[in-house]
């Protein structure tokens, strides 16, 4: 079980050499660090910056937790830091003054004090490691040599560490709300230099909100414990990136190792991020479950006596389903979608790098904890009696599986670049649902009603296609609707549009490369944009600039279709003239209604059923196509193959030269019978 996090061997006293040494150390760190006792020969997958050992005990009756944690944090940047910042996200539910409560528009969580949640950090001790070190001369240079750092599983004695509890304070980096207590700051006695480690010890009392609110909490004897421990922020570019808890975003953290001991009543079933390594039976009717999760950036767990546990395998991955007993008859349905969905996602994005995946079915009434993603643990949500052809649960599971990559492996900043997280996930959800359940009716497949996941997303998108630019801090969108559109719907439609534009093969290559190159890192929008250019061999700046930084709307339409017999030469001196024209002269005018420029195909349709395609760059306000043909033109349409789901209005994409009542008549015939039947119900 030894878990060593060795520091760079040495660093020079001279700044230049020191920098180089740090850079080399950073580059090599993944390769040289030994891993856990599970596989001591394997290299760590991630930089392992924030590493936690947590002991926590659940008081199931009072819905409270008592915990203590050691954090070993490694400053892998080139900058020193004079403070540490932590998320205390359970304080979002502390009172109605928090930023979360204000943003979500809730005035109260209830009269009962147990309805509110909070976290109180009762003690904090900080000890940088290692202490200053010996100097040695090597190869003519005087070098600072640090001893091999202590093992992660041998933290210092808490009592020996300097107590800094009274230096703790709250800060409000996002909105200046002085009542918000979701970000804690601890100044350090001395700045922590690049490459150095620090041990932080703290104890905390935590109350879970009941019923669960926005993704965490309790309901009777069901607990979904997320955003629960003091979690360190991300130190990057010489500053802390540690956002307050917002109504619509909550994730940005560094990778590391989590060793978490959770003590719960003995008859409770428990599931958590990572893998269970030990279960200890205690004398007080409780059991302690020891879990270990490596190379993840968060840790969540759930426990309840009402879970039924089902196991399955997908290759080497153990699948564990914790399903409510009353939903147990849907266990196979859950496992089916997990197997099929994850298999397809792995085909698209590369292997899932963890040994286990836990799927949780929340207790009915605790829907607020459903549809959530945590490393190696996802929550779904179903209802008793949901027909198998209404695949909302399946869509949720596929969405959360995709999050294991876009959030789990590629830990982008959800606060400021949410499309990299929710947007990519939604795109993948639409794609995988289509691949697994068919291109028609992937989400709902009931008689005449066949709805695809992409159609569902379009429905949301067209409500407000031009509200905000996509790339904004989440809490600055003009409304919740705008957030949903820009975080989920628009990115999914934009990436599908990009897939059609580049070709599925190129898109697949792009996605695989993106995951491979940026996994266990914090990719940013510009990383993806640059990579898209690199993989496709095209400059895609024109597309992403419009998409990310403007609220431009994409909408093309056909406004005029004309076809007339070609004029014969007439008048003076025209008798001998022979014009090489077709029988008909046609004119089609296409217009760009929105200001988002995108190249489109224009299809011309003739009386004999033949079609012809023209391409238009779409950069002018309108374009007129004038041409001759042997057959009379009947209609024209832009984007004939429906390759641009980002088009805000598909109704105006085509135009007939002459009206055709047939489609309306056909529909009316069907509806006439429906109405006749309906009326018979009221024929007394």
């Amino acid at each position, binding site marked *: 079980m030894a878990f060593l996090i060795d520091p760079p061997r040495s660093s020079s006293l001279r700044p230049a050499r020191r920098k180089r040494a740090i850079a080399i150390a950073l580059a090599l760190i993944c390769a040289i660090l030994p891993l856990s006792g599970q596989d001591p020969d394997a290299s760590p997958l991630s930089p392992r910056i924030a590493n936690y050992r947590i002991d926590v005990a659940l008081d199931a009756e009072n819905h409270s937790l008592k915990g203590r944690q050691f954090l070993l944090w490694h400053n892998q940047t080139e900058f020193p830091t004079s403070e540490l910042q932590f998320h205390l996200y359970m304080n979002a539910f502390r009172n109605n003054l928090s930023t979360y409560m204000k943003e979500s528009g809730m005035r109260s969580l209830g009269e009962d004090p147990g309805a509110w949640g909070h976290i109180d950090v009762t003690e904090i001790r900080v000890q940088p490691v290692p202490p200053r070190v010996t100097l040695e001369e090597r190869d003519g240079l005087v070098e600072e040599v640090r001893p091999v750092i202590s093992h992660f599983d041998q933290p210092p004695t808490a009592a020996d560490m300097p107590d800094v509890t009274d230096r703790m304070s709250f800060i409000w980096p996002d909105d200046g709300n002085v009542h918000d207590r979701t970000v804690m700051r601890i100044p350090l006695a001395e700045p922590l230099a690049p490459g150095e480690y620090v041990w932080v010890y703290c104890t905390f009392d935590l109350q879970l909100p009941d019923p669960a609110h926005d993704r965490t909490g309790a309901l009777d004897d069901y607990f979904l414990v997320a955003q629960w421990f003091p979690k360190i922020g991300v130190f990057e570019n010489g500053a802390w990136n540690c956002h307050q808890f917002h109504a619509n975003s909550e994730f940005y953290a560094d990778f590391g190792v989590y060793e978490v001991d959770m003590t719960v009543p003995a008859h409770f079933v428990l599931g958590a991020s990572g893998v269970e390594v030990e279960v200890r039976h205690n004398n007080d009717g409780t059991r302690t479950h020891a879990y270990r999760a490596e190379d993840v950036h968060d840790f969540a767990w759930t426990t309840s006596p009402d879970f039924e546990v089902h196991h399955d395998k997908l290759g080497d991955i153990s699948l564990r389903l914790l399903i409510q007993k009353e939903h147990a008859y849907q266990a196979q349905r859950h496992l089916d979608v997990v197997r099929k969905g994850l298999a397809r996602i792995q085909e698209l994005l590369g292997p899932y790098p963890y040994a286990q995946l836990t799927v949780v079915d929340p207790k009915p009434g605790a829907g607020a904890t459903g549809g959530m993603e945590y490393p190696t643990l996802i929550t779904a949500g179903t209802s008793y009696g949901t027909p198998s052809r209404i695949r909302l649960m399946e869509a949720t599971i596929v969405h959360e599986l995709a999050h294991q990559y876009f959030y789990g492996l590629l830990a982008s900043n959800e606060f400021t670049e949410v499309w990299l997280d929710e947007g990519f996930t939604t795109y993948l959800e639409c794609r995988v649902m289509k691949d697994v359940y068919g291109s028609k009716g992937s989400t709902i497949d009931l008689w005449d009603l066949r709805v695809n996941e992409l159609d569902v997303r379009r429905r949301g998108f067209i409500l407000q296609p031009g509200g905000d630019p996509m790339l904004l801090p989440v809490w600055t969108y003009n409304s919740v609707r705008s957030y949903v559109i820009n975080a989920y719907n628009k990115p999914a439609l934009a990436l599908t549009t990009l897939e059609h534009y580049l070709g599925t093969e190129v898109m697949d290559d792009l996605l695989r490369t993106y995951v491979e190159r940026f996994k266990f890192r914090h990719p940013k929008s510009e990383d993806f944009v640059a990579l898209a250019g690199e993989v496709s061999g095209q400059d895609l700046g024109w597309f992403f600039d419009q998409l990310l930084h403007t609220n431009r709307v994409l909408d093309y339409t056909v406004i005029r279709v004309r076809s007339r017999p070609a004029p014969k030469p007439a008048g003076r001196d025209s008798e001998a003239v022979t014009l090489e024209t077709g029988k008909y002269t046609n004119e089609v005018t296409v217009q760009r209604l929105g200001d988002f420029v995108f190249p489109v195909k224009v299809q011309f349709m003739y009386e004999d059923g033949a079609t012809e395609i023209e391409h238009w760059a779409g950069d002018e306000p309108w374009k007129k196509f004038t041409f001759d043909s042997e057959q009379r033109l009947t*209609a024209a349409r832009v984007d004939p193959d429906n390759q641009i789901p980002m088009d805000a209005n598909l109704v105006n994409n085509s135009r007939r030269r002459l009206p055709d009542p047939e489609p309306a008549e056909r529909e009316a015939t*069907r509806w006439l019978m429906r*109405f006749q039947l309906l009326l018979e119900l009221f024929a007394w």
Partner: protein
Amino acid sequence: MRKPHFIDCLRRALPAVPRYPRTLLTLLFANLVAALVCLAPFWMAFESYSKRRVVGDGGLLDPHFLVDFLFYRQGSWDLAKGMLPISIGLYALFSVFLSGGVFSVLFQGRGDHAALFWRDAGRFFPKFVMLLVWSIPLFALAPLLHGGVLLALEAIYGPELPAAVEFYGGWAALALPALGWLLYLRVFDYARIYMVTTGQAPASLALYEGVVFVGRRFFSVVGLALSVAVVLALWFWLYAEARGFLPESGWLLILLQQIWMLGRQAARLWLYDAELRLFRKLRTRAPLKAVGLPPRRRLPV
């Protein structure tokens, strides 16, 4: 074993139906016109959307375009949705109006009689409307039934119902008012029959007689209605099979639809006539018992 009364009534009523072709066509025509009135705003919405568009193989309401259709044609869609309940309500009243004529000509039993039909349709309409007004307390039973089922479940299982109980209980809470509604329709039928057969009867008394008759002759009443429903279901199955051989639209399809609907109206007429016969048959016996004549008994041989 003696044949149930309702079988006999159904058997006798069936050959009578073809004697009322004009009544049948009137019912069909009323239904068709009302359906066209309901359809008109939807048709206009479809036309405004599709007349100048290229509609794909998925049809006008292909889900890919449906979201845009619903969103960008929201005005015409809302208008159509808004007009629908009004059209349905008017049709319901008109069918009540027609039923006075239908029951009258069936009661006379001499085939179609246009003058009698329209005169009695008008004559009984206000009475039938009063009957509806008196029925309001019965309508109020529907939500009570619904809430009662839920309350009973809560009393048994506590406020947090097990998911299976909640699911099936929810369906039961929906199904019971629906069954109650079907039963009410029988009460309404027999109350109207009472009015037509007795000539002049206050609506309250007719409703009472209807309730009493349905209560006393419950199995006959339900058996009769169920038998017609089964025949209708078979008729629908035949229609659905035949529909598969026809194109998606066109006059042939409309013709088939109207043939189906004509059968539906014939079934309605058949039901009314059988109910009339059942009422006349069974109601006349009841008073005999009421006056206390001893039942006939066979002495053991």
